[in-house]
């Protein structure tokens, strides 16, 4: 449990022009290129689970999502997360927690166990492959299929230390905000869906499974109350992330997330893990859609350009105009996000200059950033200091553009958007050839999110995904977009047919020969 009152110190004034600060100002969230769907989902579910699947009566009573489960993860990941923990005993009188962790890491039998290595292999199969980048087992997560399989990012205290502690590695607080949106939506008419979603998440995360038995047994052996066996104190930024859930700028996200999460979690015909896997997709997808929609809004993108074209099928790229346009659509989305970042950064520079009368520009950038280098006469901070107080917006935008080009502002915008979509299978290709697409898992999540309205014809389904996420699949949904003049209808209809085929193969739709496809017979809620 986290400790309560008096634990936080007064926040110090943070630099206002760092990539994180600009992303937060623009999106009201803090995406990051290291935060992918698994991290976002785990943090959301951990926050819900740690707080009893409801919002704390007093926001100050929020419990941190930083859950260790070092015994279970030692077994599952083959790494001793209890290394260096030599105080106390684990399970046996002559076994320290560090020794216990070492035995678990190699799958050695402990106190009458048998075939523990088989359990280890079974658990290893459940590691979310999207988290297995790099050599940091502390950041590896299990798929979010049960409350007892969730844990927070961990890292060694230093490169020479054997002590692991839970801390922000790839989880950045976005999941805490999403948990707030679901458990305590700020809008009365979103509450029904939000609460229904959270109740169904609780059911799914606490479903009886042998996996829970393994986790419970192994964790029970650790001495209670130790720092590595209880959540640490709530941190300021965690509290801020929770509070951010009430920000009016997240109104649209609140509605869509509650609606979609309720759809996924209340559908029939899917197992609890299948629903939770779809929830992982929807959380990341809605988060990413919020980013791009905010960028469209910030840059005044015309309605006809506000779409994401999904390309289906395996035709060679050179022969597939829809694929080429989907690449273009992806590039356009990123460009708009970059432009939105420049606009936001310029606006903030102007405000700091003209309203706050800031003169120490170097302090507004990240420590060590070349942008704030006072010795370089061409650095952004020096250029800002040379601007007259009554400079025009264009001047700030010029400087902001230089800043964006020479520092990593895309990390919290375009790149955050990319990794979220990549980790749910919504982006295919590599490098300059990336394009929007959807695999069976993503399509299943879209169908699940719309379960309240299922079954429906594929035509209605494509119209619904256009409305809900801005995805264009067929000719009809492209009619009011710039695509109408760029692609012939036959190409888009073929694209739709391929999507239907994929859904039929995945058991999400039934294809009929006259080009009608009925989607979501199974996902339809049983009450219908």
């Amino acid at each position, binding site marked *: 449990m986290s400790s309560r009152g008096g634990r936080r110190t007064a926040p110090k004034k943070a630099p206002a022009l760092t990539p994180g600060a600009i992303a937060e100002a623009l999106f009201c969230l803090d995406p990051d290129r290291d935060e992918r769907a698994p991290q976002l989902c785990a943090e959301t579910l951990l926050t819900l689970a740690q707080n009893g699947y409801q919002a704390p009566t007093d926001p100050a009573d929020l419990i941190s999502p930083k859950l260790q489960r070092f015994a279970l993860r030692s077994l599952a990941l083959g790494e001793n997360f209890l290394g260096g923990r030599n105080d106390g*005993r*684990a*399970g046996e009188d002559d076994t320290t927690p560090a020794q216990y962790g070492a035995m678990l890491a190699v799958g050695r039998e*402990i*106190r*009458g*166990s*048998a*075939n*523990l290595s*088989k*359990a280890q*292999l*079974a658990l*290893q*199969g*459940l590691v979310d492959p999207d988290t297995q980048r790099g050599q940091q087992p502390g950041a590896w997560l299990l*798929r979010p*299929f*049960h409350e007892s*399989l969730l844990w927070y990012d961990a890292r060694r205290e230093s490169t020479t230390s054997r002590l692991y502690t839970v801390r922000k590695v790839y989880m950045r607080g976005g999941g805490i905000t999403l948990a707030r949106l679901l458990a305590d939506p700020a809008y009365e008419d979103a509450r029904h869906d939000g609460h229904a979603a959270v109740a169904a998440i609780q059911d799914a995360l606490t479903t*009886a*499974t*042998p*996996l829970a*038995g*393994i986790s419970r*047994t*192994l964790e*029970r*052996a650790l*001495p*209670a109350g130790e720092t590595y066996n209880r959540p640490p104190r709530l941190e300021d930024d965690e509290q801020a992330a929770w509070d951010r859930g009430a920000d009016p700028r997240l109104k649209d996200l609140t509605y869509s997330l509650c609606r979609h999460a309720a759809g996924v979690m209340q559908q029939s*015909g*899917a*197992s*609890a*893990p*299948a629903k939770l*896997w779809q929830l992982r997709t929807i959380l990341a997808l809605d988060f990413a859609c919020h980013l791009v929609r905010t960028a469209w809004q910030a840059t005044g993108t015309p309605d006809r350009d506000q779409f994401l074209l999904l390309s289906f099928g395996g*035709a060679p790229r050179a022969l597939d105009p829809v694929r080429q346009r989907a690449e273009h659509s992806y590039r356009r989305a990123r460009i708009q996000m970059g432009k939105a970042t420049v606009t936001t950064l310029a606006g903030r520079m102007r405000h700091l200059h003209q309203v706050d009368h800031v003169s120490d520009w170097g302090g507004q950038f990240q420590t060590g950033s070349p942008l704030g280098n006072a010795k370089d006469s061409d650095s952004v901070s020096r250029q800002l200091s040379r601007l007259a107080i009554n400079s025009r917006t264009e001047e700030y935008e010029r400087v902001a553009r230089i800043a964006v080009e020479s520092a990593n502002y895309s990390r919290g915008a375009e790149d955050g958007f990319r990794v979220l979509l990549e980790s749910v299978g919504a982006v295919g290709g590599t490098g300059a050839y990336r394009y929007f697409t959807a695999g*069976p*898992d993503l399509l*299943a999540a879209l169908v699940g999110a719309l379960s309240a309205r299922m079954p429906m*014809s594929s035509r209605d389904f494509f119209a619904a995904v256009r409305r809900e996420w801005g995805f264009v699949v067929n000719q009809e949904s492209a009619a009011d977009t710039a695509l109408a003049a760029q692609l012939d209808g*036959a190409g888009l209809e*073929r694209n739709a*047919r391929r999507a239907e*085929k994929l859904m*039929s*193969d*995945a*058991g*999400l739709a039934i*294809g*009929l*020969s*006259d*080009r009608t496809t009925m989607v979501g017979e*199974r996902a339809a809620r049983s009450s219908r």
Partner: protein
Amino acid sequence: MSAGDNQRAQPDHSGATATKADELPAVTALRGMSVFSADQAGAYREHFAELAAALGDDVETSLGAYLSRWAAEGTRGAVVLTGNAGTGKTAAAEAYARAAGAALPADDALVEIAPGRSVLKDLSGLPTHARASTLGRALEASDGQFLVCANEGVLRDALEELGNVTAAATLDEALRRGAARHDDITVVNVNRQRPTGDRLWMQLLDYLTREELWTGCEGCPYGDGGCSMRSNAEQMRRTDVREQMRTLFRLGTGEAVPTLREVLAILSWAIVGRSSCEQVRGKFRDTGLHDATAVDGYFTRVLGGGMSGEAAERSPLLSGIRRAGLGEVSDLEVDGWLRDTNGAPDTVRLVAGDPTAQAQPTSASTSGRLAGSQSPLDRVRTKQGEMTFHALGEMVSTDEDPTRVEDGLEALVSGDGVDNAAVQSLWRQRVFFEAADSLGGSAAAARRLLRFRYVGDLTELAAKTARGRDTVIELNELVRGLNFLVTGFASPNEGLVVPDPACLFARDPGAFRPARPSLVHSLVPLSKLSLHVPDVGLVESLLDVDHVDVELVADHDEDLALRVRPRMYEAIREAAEFGGPVGQGVAEMNDLRGFYGRLAVHLAGDSTDPDGDDALRVADPESHPPALVKITLPHFVEFR
């Protein structure tokens, strides 16, 4: 040329032709039935009269026969035909009207065509506000017969508005089972009609290829081996060719519900493509045998040959057929026969156009590389000119001129650079249709030349299941395959292993990485599993059905059914047989997750006690022989 000119002489459907026409009426009709080009008027019922003049009366479907009998008997009640455009609802309504001694009304309204017999040929043709009331009149009448044709969506809306619970329940049941009857209301889901049914398939092919339709136009070069259309029709009259074609269509129907319109369109394309009699005569006049080759053969056209990939994609049925990969799958022996026909069976040598295989030379036989050619179907184009399959094989294998060999090889693997049909693909396709016996029979030919190696086994299993025969051995194989697919554990001895639903996500049956142990949720003994075919009961007596897939059902509960279509069956059998990575995609795994998820929920009560730490089992792919391994967790005293 005007239509009038074309129809200077009409066949009298008795086989005799008074005078020869410039264009065979059948050719005009078949070209119009295609849905793959702009000229597709013949594909719609409204233009059927023109087709009937050329091709004769409709084929008689079981549905048409049932409705005709019903009209003759005069039994009171309502029959509702629901299904998608092109499935044959209007044709069936026409048969009903004919049996009642009347014509099908032209208007979309409930029309009394004969005393006590009313027809509404398309509910969606009525204004929205009138649909429910009109349907109500038909369904709730106390006397007379009412036949209503309606698309599902429109019908469901109208029933909802009407509040007729019995009819709505009947519709639901019909959509599930194909047909349902309650009181006087019968609802038939025409989407479940299968053109590959025993009777209907032969009728459809007769309808398009029967000899009397293909007597030849004025100056027809068929006798000289110059008309691909008549050669196609001739071959498609062969029983063995029809059976092979049926296999392909069955594969296609396993992926999409086929409409009669689509089937007829594909068959028409296979026979005539875009050709006309005038074109064929003109080419023969100008180039002799040289411009009529195997690229116009039915065996490649039935797979969409001659049309763009985009056009082929318009038909889900054709897309399904193309996925069979006929022509792309190699077989050492078949490919070897092309390079050297000497050791090949006589049937194969005939197909190759080997002159020494023919009992007597035909009029089409000429000297040189076309010697032995019987029809355009055995000729191919190369940079060295047109030649028979046999001559190409000889050139590639024995010619000493490297240029000729290179040109031959290029034609063999890449095509002639004009139509890009690789000769080896054309060869495999032709052998599949016309020399299946030389490959060991129909099932063996499918196994050797299609991507779906087990399609023959699936149809056989479906037929056995439909007849209620013993399928225990096959069930065992299915369970073995499924166990491997979901756990990597290839043994049916423990029954169907239902893994913990979470562990299903750890499996990628297409990956070469060895499977990890899966926690077992529960086991379903073989005695609780059964095989069914989807189309049973009333639907069998009302529609032409063909059993091309099966359902694996647990506990006799329809909600716990896994539909095993050709792709799924392929994955299961590959898994059972090879115990290694299977060729099917992640989409099938998604379907399996749904099935096992439902099973796990259903069997939750029987599963291992989740809190009983000593009752965990894993299906261990590494144990030999495959076995379920019990896991015992450590015992700790409460440490507090």
